[in-house]
C-alpha cells in the first residue's frame, strides 16, 4: 500500500477534510447532532461542554464534532513528523451507549474506505482516566495494522458521579488516521484538500506555539492569569452561572499546560495546581446535575429516532485514525 492508494483500491484516498466530513455525515445519519469545536483552548475533545456536561445525569445525548486539542508538552517546533502542539480529534458521544456500538464504529471506518478484511483491527485494552475531570472509563485503543487510530471509552464516572446511563466516547485521531489512509510518513504531508497540505496550514503555527510554550511564555503573567481565572471561575459559579464558570476552568487547565511545558511548575506545585482544577471541575459538574434536575431533565425522551437500531449485524471492518499525540483521546489537566 505504498505509492498509491491501495487502501481504497482504485479510488484515491480521502483528503483530510473528506475524512472529517465523511465521519460527520456518518454520525449524522445515525442520529447525532453535529457540534462544532468549542472556542476555548483545551487538551482533549472530552473537555468540550458538549461532552463533559452532557454525559452527566440521566438525559440522552448524541453528538459528533471535530475538536482541536492543544497539548503544549507535545509541541516539537513542527520538526517531528508525528507529534504536534495541536492535533484534531473527531469526537463522538453516544448516551446511552448502544449495544451495537462496536459495529457502528467499524462501519464508520468502512465509510472511510477501510476494508476490515484487508487489515488487522484490534480492540486493545486501554482504560482512560482524567482525574482533573473526576472522570474515568474502561475501553480500548483501536489498532489498525498495529497503529492506534482511536480511543474507545465507556464512561464509568464523570465529575465524581457514577455514570448512569453509561455514555460511550469514540475519539478518532484525525491526522494519524488520514496519514494512514494517504500513506504519508510525515503527517505534515497530508493532503488537506486539492494542493494544500496539512503543513501548509499548520507548520508555521506548530513552530510558533512550540517556541511560545517552551521559550517565550511569561511565567509570571501566566501564573497571575491562572489565579485570576480560578477566582473568576469560583465567583461566577457562586452566581449560579455554570457554563461561564466552566470556561474559566478550561482556561486554568490550558494555562497550567503551558506553564508545565515551560518547565515552570515544580513537583510540589503540580499537585496543588491540578487539585484546584479538579475541585472546580467537580463543582461545575455537581452544579450542572442539580440545575438539570431542577429543569426536569428536559432532554429525556429526545433522540428517539437515534435510539432505533441502526446497525446491521455484520460489521464491515476497517480501521483508521491515530491520535497524533501519545494519548489519543485522553484529556490532559
Amino acid at each position, binding site marked *: 500500500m505504498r505509492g498509491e492508494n491501495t487502501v481504497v483500491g482504485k479510488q484515491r484516498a480521502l483528503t483530510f477534510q473528506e475524512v472529517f466530513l465523511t465521519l460527520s455525515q456518518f454520525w449524522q445519519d445515525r442520529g447525532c447532532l453535529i457540534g462544532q469545536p468549542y472556542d476555548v483552548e483545551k487538551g482533549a475533545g472530552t473537555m468540550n461542554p458538549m461532552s463533559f456536561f452532557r454525559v452527566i445525569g440521566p438525559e440522552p445525548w448524541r453528538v459528533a464534532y471535530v475538536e482541536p486539542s492543544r497539548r503544549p508538552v507535545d509541541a516539537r517546533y513542527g520538526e*517531528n513528523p*508525528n507529534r504536534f502542539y495541536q492535533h484534531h480529534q473527531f469526537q463522538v458521544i453516544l448516551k*446511552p451507549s448502544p449495544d451495537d456500538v462496536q459495529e457502528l464504529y467499524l462501519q464508520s471506518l468502512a465509510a472511510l474506505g477501510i476494508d*476490515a478484511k484487508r487489515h488487522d483491527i484490534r480492540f486493545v485494552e486501554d482504560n482512560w482516566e482524567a482525574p482533573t475531570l473526576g472522570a474515568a472509563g474502561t475501553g480500548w485503543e483501536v489498532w489498525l*495494522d498495529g*497503529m492506534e487510530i482511536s480511543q474507545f471509552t465507556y464512561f464509568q464516572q464523570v465529575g465524581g458521579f457514577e455514570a448512569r446511563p*453509561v455514555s460511550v466516547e469514540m475519539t478518532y485521531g484525525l491526522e494519524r488516521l488520514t496519514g494512514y489512509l494517504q500513506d504519508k510518513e510525515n503527517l505534515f504531508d497530508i493532503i488537506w484538500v486539492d494542493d494544500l497540505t496539512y503543513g501548509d496550514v499548520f507548520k508555521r503555527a506548530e513552530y510558533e506555539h512550540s517556541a511560545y510554550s517552551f521559550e517565550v511564555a511569561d511565567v509570571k503573567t501566566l501564573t497571575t492569569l491562572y489565579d485570576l481565572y480560578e477566582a473568576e471561575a469560583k465567583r461566577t459559579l457562586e452566581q449560579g452561572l455554570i457554563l461561564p464558570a466552566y470556561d474559566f476552568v478550561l482556561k486554568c487547565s490550558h494555562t497550567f499546560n503551558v506553564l508545565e511545558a515551560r518547565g515552570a511548575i515544580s513537583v510540589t506545585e503540580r499537585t496543588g495546581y491540578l487539585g484546584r482544577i479538579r475541585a472546580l471541575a467537580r463543582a461545575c459538574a455537581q452544579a450542572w446535575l442539580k440545575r438539570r434536575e431542577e429543569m426536569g431533565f428536559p432532554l429525556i425522551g429526545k433522540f428517539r429516532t437515534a435510539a432505533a437500531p441502526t446497525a446491521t449485524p*455484520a460489521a464491515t*471492518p476497517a480501521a483508521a485514525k491515530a491520535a497524533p499525540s501519545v494519548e489519543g483521546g485522553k484529556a490532559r489537566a
Partner: protein
Amino acid sequence: MPENTARRTLDGAVDFVLEVGTEEIPARFLPAAIEQLEARGRALFEESLLGAKDIVAYATPRRLVLLVAGVAQRQVDREADVKGPAKKAAFDAEGRPTKAAEGFAKSQGVDPADLVVKAVAGGEYVFAHKHVAGRAAEDVLGEALPKLITSLEWPKLMRWGDHDLRFVRPVKWLLALYRGTVVQFSLDGVTSGRTTLGHRFLHPEALSVATAADYLAVARVGQVIVDPAERRAQIIAQLRALATKAGGKAIEDPDLLTEVTHLVEYPTALIGRFAPEYLQLPADVLITSMKHHQRFFPVLDDQGRLAPLFITVRNGDDYALDVVRAGNEKVLRARLADAKFFYDDDLKRPLADRVAELDRVAFQERLGTMGDKTRRLEALTADILGLAHRPLVETVRRAAHLAKADLVTSMVKEFPELQGRMGQVYAEKSGEPAEVAVAVGEQYRPAFAGDEVPSTVAGKVLALADKVDTLAAAFGIGLVPTGSQDPYGLRRAAQGVVAILLAADFRLSLGQLIDRAFSHLGDLAAKAAEGRPALMDFLRARLTNAMAEAGLRYDVIEATLAAGFDDPARAFERARALASVRDEEAFADVVTAFTRAANLAGKTAAVRPVDPALFEHDAERRLLEAYESVAAEALVMENDGRYTAFLRELSKLRPAVDAFFDAVMVMVDDQRVRENRLNLLRSVSGLATRVADLSKLVAAPAAKA
C-alpha cells in the same frame, strides 16, 4: 501469571457447553478467568448433582467457554429431610402442631402429622421427610448459570448503556446447550440460545450449533480457535517457521506469547522489516519499541544479535497480508524514528548535566524530589561502604550522583521501563568510567523474581542504597503494604535488599543500615523512625521467604531468626548449619537439654555473673567448667563462621546439663542460690542463642525405634 500451556481436551463426549460472548476482554485478564471459570464450573456441577466426568474452560478475547462431559440427564431422585422450626415452636402444650409447624408442612407439601422431631446441634427441630424428584439438567443449569457467570471475579468491572449488570466487558450473546437442548436463562436482557458468532471479520455471520458436541467444530467453521493452548502452539510454530526462513530466531518471550494468544481468535504470524540503520540504537530500545508498544517479537540473527526484523501476529488469516505488513512496518518506522530522535537529542548533553533537573521530578508525594533522593543515595552509599569497612570509592559516589539522571532524558520519559539501562548507555557515551556506567545500569536489579543481583560491588552498593532508601521513606510515612496491595513495589525492594545482602562479598549490620537510611530523611527523619519495627518485620518476612525457597524448614528458620538476623548472610549460614545437624539423633537430646535450660533461665530475676561460692552440688561446678571450656571453643568457631562445628561443640555440654538437672533442684527457697543457678543456666542457653533459639525447633518425628 500461571497458565496451563498444555492443550486440554475433554475426556468423554461433550454434553454441555456454555459460551459467553462479549466485547473484547483485556488479554491480561484471561488466564486467571479461565482458571476461575473451570474451578467454579466444576463446583457448580458437583453441587448440581448432575455429575461431570470432565470439565474444561477456554477463552478468546470475545468469548468465555465452558465444556463439560458426562453430565446426567436428570438429577437422581433422593430422600431428603428438610429442617423446620424448633420443636418447642412447632407444638403447643398439648403436643398439637402450631401454626408455624402447619405452615412449614404446607410449604414442604407434607402432612403436619408426618413431621418428625430430630435432635441436631442446637436442639430439637421438626423435619419434613420427603421424596425429592431429580430435576432435568436443563432446569438445574438454567438456574445456576447466571450465578456462575456473575460470580466470576475480574480486576475491573464496568457498566454499559442503561444496563444494570456489571461485568468485565459488555455481554453480547449467550449460548448454552445441554446436548441438543437450549438451557434457558437470561442475563440482563440477553437470552441464551444456540447461536454463536464467528470471527469478527473472517466470519461475521451468526452460526447455529445443533448440539453441545458440535460446538468446537462450529466455532472452527467460524474461524475461531477457542482453545488458547492451540492458538499458542500455532503462534509458536509460525514464529519458528518465519524466523528460520529468515535465518534467525525469534525471542519467544513467554509473557508476550500469553498476551498475544489472548489478543487473537485466529492467529496468522507475519514477518516485517525495519531499516538496518536503526540497529545503531541500543538493543533495549529496539526491543522495548517492538515488544511493549507493538507486541512484536524481535528476531535475532545467527550471531545472536538483533536482526532488522520483527514478527507480529495478525488476528485473521493471510488475506492481504502485505497490507497488514506494510502498515505494521510503517508504525514501527515512526516509533523507531521517534526513538532515534530522542536518542540523538539526549546525547547532545552529558548525563551529569541533567542531575540538577531532578529537583523538578517527584520521587513520591510527600517524599520530595528525585533530586532529594539523589542526595540521599550519595550519603547512604557512603554509609554502606563505611558500615562494610570498605574504602569510599569514587566509582560509587559518582554512580550515586548520576543514578537517576536518565529519568529526565527524552528516551526514559517515553519508555520508562528503560530507566537504568539508558542511564548506563548515556553514562558511557558521556565518557564516565565503565564501572560507573555499569553500576548505574545495575541499580534496579533484582527487578523481578529470579532476576540477578548486580554483578559489581558498586552496583550492589547502589542498588542496596536505592532500595533501602525507598523502604525507609515509604515506611516512614506509613506506606506499609497490606495483603496483595503493594503499589510502590516495596516487597520487591525488600526482596532485593535480602538478595543483595546474601550475595554480597561485604558484610554489614542491617539494623545500622536502616537507621542510617532513616537519618537521611530530613524533616521526616524523627517521625519516620517510628516505622522501623514494621520495616524490620517486613525484611524478616522476606528473609524467611528466601530461606524457605532454599529448602530450609520453617522451624529451623524461626529458630535461627529468633536469635537475630542483623547480618542476613550469616543468619542464612547459621540456618544451614542448624538444618544440617538438627536431624541427627544425638542432637534431639541436645535440643531437649538446652530448651529445658532456656525455659528456666527465663525466670532469672537479675542478670549477674555465676558465683561458684554459692554452689552446693558438684554438678553445678562441673556444668560451669564444661560451659567455660565449650564456650571458649565455640566462640572462636562462631567468629569464624563455622556454625556446624559450633553446634556440634554445644552438644558436648549436654551430659553436664543433664547431670545438673538430675542432681540439682533449681527453684529452691534460698533466693541467692536459686538466682545463681538460674544465671548458670542463662549462660548455658545464651551460648546456643548466638546461633539459634533451639527452643523454637519442632521435635523431629520419632523415626527410629
